[in-house]
């Protein structure tokens, strides 16, 4: 692992900078991932050699740009094993993807007294769109709660899933609890009740192989910037027959087939959802990110991150007064570790870590209903990536201990 790790770390120039005079230890990968040279160079190369607007000009440059843009769509489809490129819609972010489903598809299939079933561990982006849809349509929003070990309560899911459930929307991986949910089982059970299944894959797409056909989900959303790509590019996968019946929610250039003074005809999916000039540079960068992930290999990434978490979690558990949220059993816990130190506010802890060059998130992680359920206002969160090393894990635990000692001494 060591040799491959050293090669990989060199691809990320930011990892060699210093923060507060200490070598940077970046552990906020759940918020955004760092971007390797290969992605940056591909974007730069596109702007230097092939930049033009897509789907408009008949000239050579425009054609090259359009081809590059559409080739990435095929690349994305292959990456998540979608049936075809037409099932891939480019969006701005996971949030926009989820909003698109809730606004377009949600309004199409959800009626008064129907039920929308989500989980208490959802990020606000997979919660508020459904909350607002429920309010618009007078449907009922229900939440699957947690088991005692803070994983998804599948018994509660079975109990709340019924013939009124129209949509089940769930995160594949929680951005707080470090758990990955059994999407294939959830989809199977939901489909038995004729409900549609939406998956927020923002936290899973860079960490495990995803096969939307094997999972048999109806929609799946993720962002480029959490998988080594640039910000501002997101993806929505939808089953072709569902995308086909969904109305667009944004209107303008590129998404139309024909316009008169009084009416307009849409293009077919996915282009009817891509009004206006899209984030072409972002799409090119996303393509490069997928190439990078594939070259390293998702199985290697998964194995490496498993090794890291198995080093980190037991060490962290040894720190007196430290509470880890989510499952305590390391086998069930992935590389997202939310925790608190007794009597210390997460912001104070994060500032201490920052002084040691360790960058972690502190806050409610855009999951306030989950925070309420856990009985906290906020937590510290460290989230790792395959470009972190075992030494990084040891250094992190040491830094946590130093910060704890600092405040223990002061108070």
């Amino acid at each position, binding site marked *: 692992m060591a040799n491959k790790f050293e090669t990989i770390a060199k691809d990320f120039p930011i990892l060699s900078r210093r923060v507060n005079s200490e070598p940077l230890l970046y552990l906020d990968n759940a918020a955004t991932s760092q971007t390797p040279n290969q992605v940056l160079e591909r974007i730069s190369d596109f702007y230097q050699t092939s930049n033009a607007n897509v789907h408009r000009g008949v000239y050579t440059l425009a054609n090259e740009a359009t081809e590059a843009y559409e080739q990435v769509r095929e690349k994305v489809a292959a990456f998540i094993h979608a049936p075809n490129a037409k099932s891939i819609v480019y969006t701005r972010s996971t949030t926009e993807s989820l909003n698109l489903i809730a606004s377009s598809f949600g309004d199409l299939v959800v009626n008064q007294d129907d039920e929308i079933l989500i989980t208490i561990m959802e990020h606000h982006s997979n919660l508020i769109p459904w909350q*607002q849809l429920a*309010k618009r349509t007078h449907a009922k929003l229900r939440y699957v709660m947690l088991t005692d070990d803070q994983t998804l309560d599948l018994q509660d899911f079975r109990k709340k899933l019924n013939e009124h459930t129209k949509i089940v929307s769930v995160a594949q991986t929680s951005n707080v609890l470090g758990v990955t949910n059994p999407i294939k089982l959830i989809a199977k059970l939901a489909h038995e009740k004729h409900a549609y299944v939406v998956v927020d894959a923002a936290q899973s797409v860079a960490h495990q192989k995803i096969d939307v056909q094997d999972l048999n989900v109806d929609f799946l959303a993720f962002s480029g910037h959490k998988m080594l790509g640039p910000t501002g590019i997101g993806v929505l996968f939808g089953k072709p027959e569902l995308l086909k019946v969904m109305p667009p929610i944004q209107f303008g250039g590129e998404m139309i087939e024909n316009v008169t003074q009084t009416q307009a005809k849409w293009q077919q999916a996915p282009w009817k959802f891509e009004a206006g000039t899209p984030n072409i540079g972002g799409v090119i960068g996303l393509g490069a990110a997928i190439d990078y992930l594939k070259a390293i290999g998702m199985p290697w990434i998964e194995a490496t991150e498993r090794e890291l978490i198995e080093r980190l979690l037991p060490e962290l558990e040894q720190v007196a007064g430290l509470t880890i949220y989510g499952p305590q059993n390391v086998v069930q816990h992935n590389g997202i570790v939310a925790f608190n130190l007794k009597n210390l*506010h997460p912001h104070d802890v994060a*500032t201490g870590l920052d002084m040691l060059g360790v960058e972690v998130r*502190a806050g*409610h992680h855009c999951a306030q209903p989950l925070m309420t359920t856990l009985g906290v206002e*906020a937590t510290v969160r460290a989230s790792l990536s395959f470009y972190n090393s075992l030494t990084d894990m040891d250094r992190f635990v040491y830094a946590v201990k130093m910060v704890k000692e600092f405040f223990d001494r002061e108070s």
Partner: protein
Amino acid sequence: MSLNKLNQLYRAVVLDHASHPHHKNDLADATQSIELHNISCGDDIRVFVKITTNKVEKISFTGNGCTISQASASMMTDALTGVPITKALEECDAFFQLTMGQTVPTTTQNDLGDAAILGSLAAFPARIKCATLAWHAAKTALGGEENEYNNFE
């Protein structure tokens, strides 16, 4: 690796205020109260004021937060109690300037009392919001800032 720099922020006086905050209670005879949230961590602070003849007769706060926000709220109540409204508003602005690393006249710094020590926040820009929350709530309660409350949708 060293945490020496942290000592600049977490001075003894800051830690004292945080662990034993002054005027941390609600005010039954308050003439105004304002609650503000720190959107990044979800902390909330409610500031109560009792105004008599254009003067802050009493000021207090409730709510939870980090060391910096609790200490700053406590220091704020010390600084503004018994102060005329116009002067209290000036002190709020002076505190904002101080945390952003701007120079504030020595007399104003003296008026701020313990709170002046939070000028050290200029070196910790990510934490300025923690410290200024209570002061924004106070300024709003004293009519010096727009109350941009949104309702639940």
